[in-house]
């Protein structure tokens, strides 16, 4: 059970909050940290709210970084957080190519 009202401390602005973490969607470290303080306690929620990891590369670059930031903010180990689900297709596929399979 995860009490979403448990005290994770207040949001303290950081010097590197402007650093871009998800390059596809241009999401900064500060935005991710703030989302956690607004109750987004899981990778899936952070991702659904901010779109980090939802761009063309689908999180192949930033997934680990996002996890580290969320874990640090919650005061837990990264291994305690469930990763975002991997979704098909493995690589982007044109609609005309997908449609060819009959």
């Amino acid at each position, binding site marked *: *059970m*995860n*009490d*979403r*009202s448990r005290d994770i401390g207040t949001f303290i602005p950081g010097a590197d909050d402007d650093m871009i973490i998800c390059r596809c*969607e241009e999401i900064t470290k500060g935005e991710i940290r703030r989302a956690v303080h*607004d*109750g*987004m*306690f*899981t990778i*899936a*929620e952070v991702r*659904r*709210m901010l*779109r980090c990891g*939802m*761009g*063309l590369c*689908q999180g192949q670059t930033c997934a680990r970084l996002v996890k580290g930031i969320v874990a640090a903010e919650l005061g837990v180990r990264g291994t305690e957080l*469930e990763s975002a*689900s991997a*979704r*098909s*297709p493995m690589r*982007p*596929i*044109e*609609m*005309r190519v*997908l*449609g*060819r*399979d*009959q």
Partner: protein
Amino acid sequence: MKKTADVIVVGGGAIGNATAYNLAKNGVDVLVLEADEVVGNGGSSRNGGGVRQSGRDPRELPLAIYGIQHIWPNLKDELGMDVEYHREGNLRLGRTEAHRAILNGLTDRAVECGLDVRMVEGDEAREICPYLSDAVLCASWCATDGHANPMLTTLAFYRAARRLGAVYHSGAKVTEIKKQKGRARQVVTEDGDVYEADVIVLAAGYGSRAIANTVGLEVPMHTQLMEVIVTEGVAPMFWQMLGTADADFYGHQSDHGSFVFGITGGYEDFSTAVRPVSSSIAASSACRVILGYFPILENLKIVRSWAGWIDVTADHVPVFGPVEEVPGLILVCGFSGHGFGICPTAGLLLSELAQGQTPTLPVDAFRYDRFKAPA
């Protein structure tokens, strides 16, 4: 840790979160118990984002109209998050005379209910959405339908409820409701935690069924798999919501430029998966169908797909309201694949019911005991 509240909401989907938000806004002490580790991980974050009136059952239509007139347009300001709501109309497309007959029937029934929807010929449809194929023969057109971002809407209600003091426990799977002195009073979770409230709102989608069973109630419903595919983002092309007479796909372009298409593989009734997973056939079959209406999209890449369950009742309309035989219990489930568009209205009505007030709109048509044995 909080174990008692005025109202306990079971289920942190769009419906539960909208209810918790409205209650917290009214100063009611509310606790939400969500089984999943992730808030909103059910259909509420997986749906196609349709905010439609057309195609609705007449019983649901007043809820849809109320939301579109009074809640959706201001939701962004009210919740402090842009939920990407667009009210730019819905085209339901037809390519054959058989399609035209289906669309005529739907349109006539909607007009009878007072909805502003009409048939347009192919050329007018192409004026509304210039990217449509010449194969489009006709369409029904409802100018006040639209779409919104379901992930943002669900989380915006959660965030706003939480900011107003609603307490959320995730990973708290409810197994049983227990009565005291004839009233629903206790909520028991898988971990053995026992919570207590004056009013319990059971908004757990298909999960509501097993929980309702523990106080002797049964709702005839089943689950069905629904799937979604998403393209890479491109510059804005159009803001309408689109569907077809055959209901073989529906979709829209989202604010970040991706097209989001709700699709089916044709075998969704037979899915046996424990978790909702995309089937191997749906995306391909849907791409063929979509390109038939939108050949211009052929080089767009699909970047992502997912699936979700819908909870379908025997008459495809939700169960929604207080349960007289179990005072203190409000049952709300079975949105049958169209609960997202009406979630803001549902949240308002449920919060009124939970506070013992007369709801803004009547909910009698959604009674839990409307399912009778065959005569």
